[in-house]
């Protein structure tokens, strides 16, 4: 029977989620494997596990539960060990590394911030900022909408201006929130948001962080900011910049 692993935490964690519903249908109960000062949060691995909504939620819920009461190193979804002994073996072998990471991340949580433009609002903004676009729009209007070529020309200018705004707004969101976070991890650019950034925030400073988010919102009414957290520190489990799994794929096919 292989073993599904949710995360690694301290054996002294005050509220280990023993018996909680894990992945699989029916849900496999969560178990705790202890090895020295460390504990692995696991369950039996169901046959043919897929990234289904229910299983993704179970993974996230178990980690949220653990993370609410103490620091946890969340595993990436879908990590399966051959058996329980393989899990405790890894804990024993790399104990120093995991203890160092747990100490570093103690008391900290991840907030993920995603941003997109509100289309109408950003068009307003771009037109206000750019006299040439305003003039061309006015000319097209007076010509009953303009010819196909005129529309293309206007649209191309607007798109370029909006894209420039995307880059500027991404940089502004980043720099405004960076100062109230302990660490920053930028998400994959190709995921379709103008900004997709994770911030590691001290639990005690979460209020300041959220206040800073509100300030960014107020200062950028044309930006739709979505914030998720507090989350287990998915993006900060390894020292240094995170390497998202998709990086290699994007790099390969992007060359053309």
């Amino acid at each position, binding site marked *: 029977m292989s073993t599904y692993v949710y995360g690694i935490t301290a054996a002294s964690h005050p509220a280990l989620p023993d018996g909680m519903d894990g992945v699989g249908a029916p849900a496999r109960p969560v178990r705790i494997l202890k090895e020295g000062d460390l504990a692995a949060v696991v369950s039996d691995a169901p046959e043919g596990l897929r990234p289904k909504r229910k299983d993704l939620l179970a993974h996230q819920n178990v980690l949220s539960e653990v993370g609410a009461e103490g620091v946890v190193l969340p595993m990436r979804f879908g990590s399966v060990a*051959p058996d329980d002994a393989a899990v405790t073996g890894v804990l024993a072998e790399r104990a120093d590394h995991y203890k160092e990471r747990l100490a570093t991340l103690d008391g900290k949580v991840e907030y993920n911030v995603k941003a997109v433009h509100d289309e109408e609002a950003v068009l307003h903004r771009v037109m206000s900022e750019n006299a040439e676009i305003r003039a061309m729009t006015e000319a097209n209007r007076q010509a009953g909408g*303009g010819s196909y070529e005129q*529309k293309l020309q206007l649209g191309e200018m607007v798109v370029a*201006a909006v894209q420039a705004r995307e880059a500027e707004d991404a940089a502004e969101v980043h720099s405004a929130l960076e100062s109230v976070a302990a660490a920053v991890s930028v998400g994959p650019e190709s*995921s379709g948001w103008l900004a997709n950034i994770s911030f590691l925030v001290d639990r005690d400073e979460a209020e300041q962080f959220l206040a800073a988010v509100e300030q960014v919102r107020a200062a950028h009414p044309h930006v739709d900011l979505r914030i998720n957290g507090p989350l287990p520190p998915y993006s900060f489990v390894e020292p240094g910049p995170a390497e998202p799994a998709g990086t290699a794929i994007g790099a390969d096919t992007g060359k053309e």
Partner: protein
Amino acid sequence: MTVVPAQQGGGGGGSSGLYDVLELILDRGLVIDAFVRVSLVGIEILKIDVRVVVASVDTYLRFAEACNRLDLESGPHKNPGLPDLVGEMTESGARGKSKGALSGAAETISGAFKEAREESRPEPRPRARKSTASRRKEEAE
């Protein structure tokens, strides 16, 4: 600790933000080489959900039309006259990035992901979205 999109007041509990944290659950987190990872067919959906503005004939026409309809003097987004900040446009750079994102996209679609996404968005966004396939076709034209 629950996943609450603060903006929406927190209704819906743990599942409401699942789509927004999918790439964290699937792309981040600890990886231990002694363990196997289950095959994640469908993970590519994360890469094709391009919401940033893509340079294409279709987008040009749509934005030109939107500008025609836009009334700068009224509406909820009325902007107080701003100085001309965007003097130089980084057109080529921004466009290259968007195209890279698009062409780098794989096209595998998993029902599970679509479901997660739809359920996590009770209010569909008003903006029109084209499938990657149709956008590609337009770009190729």
